[in-house]
């Protein structure tokens, strides 16, 4: 017996290692399988809607593939549309970790854009990196102040952050219009009031080998950095504790106020940065076109990603692809633009509903395997 045991030393170890790996995979799989299943269910529900309209779901999804993901052109199209969504989604996902539902990222985006355009024009003549850096910082400061104020109102004055951020977004857009039509207006922009155009030398160009601008890389880096911040640092841990139970966090001595204001300000700063890229890489000046709805689309991205900064990356790509394909679907199937909104709405609802499924499947919970 002794010999056998000795020669089999690794054998008893192997199953636990395998079991641990299985348990690890199972725990991680839950967060992937459930949202994917929800997406499939949402698409199935949407197919029923299409059938009721007398349209072919097969053609719809074929066009969606072709227009959003099926070729290098389509992939770039999807990536370009996903770019502003990454930073906009972080403006929702970061405060969400503190239990806050901030939906006014649009305001931070437009003010960030205006600040970037103003600084970019004022600093014309300085070296490229200086101007770009100044534009980025100005945009982040503008957006950070805006959403930071939402956090401060929440913590110190108990103002509901969902309502206040939304209202602040309307104020931001009005402020942008006032600035763009008033003090910052380029007198040459007659029928479309805009700021002075950014000198061509200070534009942000496409990344090598593709026609997607650098905002994509910055967005992805920001998503990863936010994941590290939340999952790997003590501030992130503190934020999660505060998000779970504010009272408990306070009893533990966590500075909940600065945490809330800081996370909100960071969230707003990232959205402001999205505005800076819209100005420096796309529009060339700040004007009413900045309010393109990215802030609102970002809410959808963050919720579909279940407020995970890493999850925002694939979800933004998916929604970018759906948006890219939307045009082709309009053109080929004669469906109105609202069709894509219906699809997005269905996906949104199904994914939100799927939240109740977490913890209900034994297969994802290794602790319950033994009792089978």
């Amino acid at each position: 017996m002794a010999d056998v045991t000795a020669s089999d030393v690794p054998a008893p170890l192997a199953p636990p290692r395998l079991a641990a790996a299985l348990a690890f995979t199972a725990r991680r799989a839950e967060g992937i399988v459930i949202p994917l299943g929800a997406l499939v269910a949402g698409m199935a529900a949407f197919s029923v809607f299409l059938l009721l309209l007398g349209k072919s779901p097969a053609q719809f999804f074929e066009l969606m593939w072709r227009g959003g993901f099926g070729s290098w052109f389509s992939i770039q199209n999807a990536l370009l549309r996903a770019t502003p969504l990454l930073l906009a989604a972080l403006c929702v996902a970061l405060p969400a970790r503190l239990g806050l539902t901030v939906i006014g990222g649009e305001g931070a985006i437009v003010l960030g854009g205006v600040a970037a355009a103003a600084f970019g024009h004022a600093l014309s003549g300085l070296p490229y990196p200086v101007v770009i850096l100044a534009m980025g910082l100005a945009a982040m400061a503008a957006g950070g102040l805006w959403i930071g104020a939402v956090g401060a109102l929440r913590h110190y004055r108990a103002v509901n952050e969902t309502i206040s951020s939304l209202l602040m977004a309307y104020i931001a857009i009005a402020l942008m219009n006032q600035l763009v039509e008033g003090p910052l207006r380029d007198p040459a922009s007659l029928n479309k009031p805009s700021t002075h155009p950014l000198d061509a030398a200070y534009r942000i160009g496409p990344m090598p080998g593709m026609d997607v601008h650098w905002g994509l890389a910055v967005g992805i880096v920001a998503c990863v950095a936010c994941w590290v911040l939340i999952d790997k640092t003590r501030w992130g841990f503190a934020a999660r504790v505060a998000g779970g139970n504010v009272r408990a966090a306070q009893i533990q001595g966590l500075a909940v106020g600065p945490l809330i204001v800081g996370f909100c300000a960071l969230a707003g700063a990232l959205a402001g940065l999205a505005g800076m890229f819209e100005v420096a890489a796309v529009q060339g000046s700040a004007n009413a076109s900045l309010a393109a709805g990215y802030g609102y689309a970002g809410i959808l991205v963050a919720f579909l990603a279940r407020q995970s900064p890493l999850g925002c990356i694939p979800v933004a790509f998916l929604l970018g692809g759906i948006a890219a394909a939307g045009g082709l679907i309009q053109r080929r199937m004669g469906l109105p633009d609202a069709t894509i909104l219906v699809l997005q709405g269905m996906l949104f609802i199904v994914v939100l509903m799927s939240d109740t499924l977490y913890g209900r499947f034994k297969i994802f919970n290794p602790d319950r395997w033994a009792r089978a």
Partner: protein
Amino acid sequence: MSHSLISRRTLLKTSAAGAAFGAAGLPFSLRPARAASATIGFIYVGPKDDYGYNQAHAEGAKVLKGMSGVTVVEEENVPESVDVQKTMESMINLDDATLVFPTSFGYFDPHMLAMCKKFPDVQFRHCGGLWHKDKHPANAGSYFGYIAMGQYLNGVVAGHATKSKKIGFVAAKPIPQVLNNVNSFLLGARSVDPSITCQVIFTGEWSLAVKEAEATNALVDQGADVITCHVDGPKVVVQTAANRGAFVCGYHASQAPLAPEKYLTGAEWNWATVYEMYAKHLLAGEPLPNFTRGGLADGFVKMSPLGPGVSDAGRKQFEATLAEIKKGGYAVIKGPLKDNKGKEIAAAGKAFPETAIELESTGFLVEGVQGSTS
């Protein structure tokens, strides 16, 4: 699917290849032969059925759908961002469009200009009159209409219909195009009765239904009994005004179905004229004009049929004025005329017809308009 066998682009490519082998291909590369068919793309910033700006363009596009050899592809609700650049690219790459009409004002710079550079073989024509031959590429161009004349005729009819001698205007933004419309509307009404005043309210946005409704209600509350507007979709203004018992004059497209009793007339775009002209040139393989403008006489702008609220006297003056405008050279802004701050804008004897370049930078509201540009 419906790829034209000898589309302009393919032809250019083939002839370029031909040129590489010998000079034989060269003459053809400069002037494409008659194209059997063509795909034309239309892009709208709002919904195609907004009873306004976008519907006016979509009605023009619809006429092309009936032309043989023309395939129309359309996309609505496209924001003035990278979205519209990608939409143009997608129409060109996936649908083989050789002529694209991005119809919203904000599509021009930088979006359409970027695509003009990227696709030198594709033609782009933009609504709004921004193209300039020294500044912009040769495959781009502009078309626009003198619609302020239509607002002047709206004013003539409104002048006959108003009892309170107060008329109202719901405007989006204080930009030259809008200000010309406001001024024309009041001056039309004053051609009937010089005591008429017009209150203007700016909503600040091209499409903001709540503020448009509030503005309309405020105008009616202040006694205005004929309302018109310049916003992207006049639906809310027309319905709100009619519900409050005021008469309405339309804009962009006909809103008569929304308020058949209260709708007097309206200044409508007639883009079919422009689009048909471009499509015919394209099918014939002829170069497309870069810059096109026209008014009521050219069929770029038309008036909605007069509604039941128009009096006989109103109809008579409307028809006489319309005939006069169609003769050409008719000036709405003519001296002596002051703005509403008392500053002279035209001395006696000075006149600005619809084609006057000065009107493209109008920054004033004429005397009798209550409201401010800032």
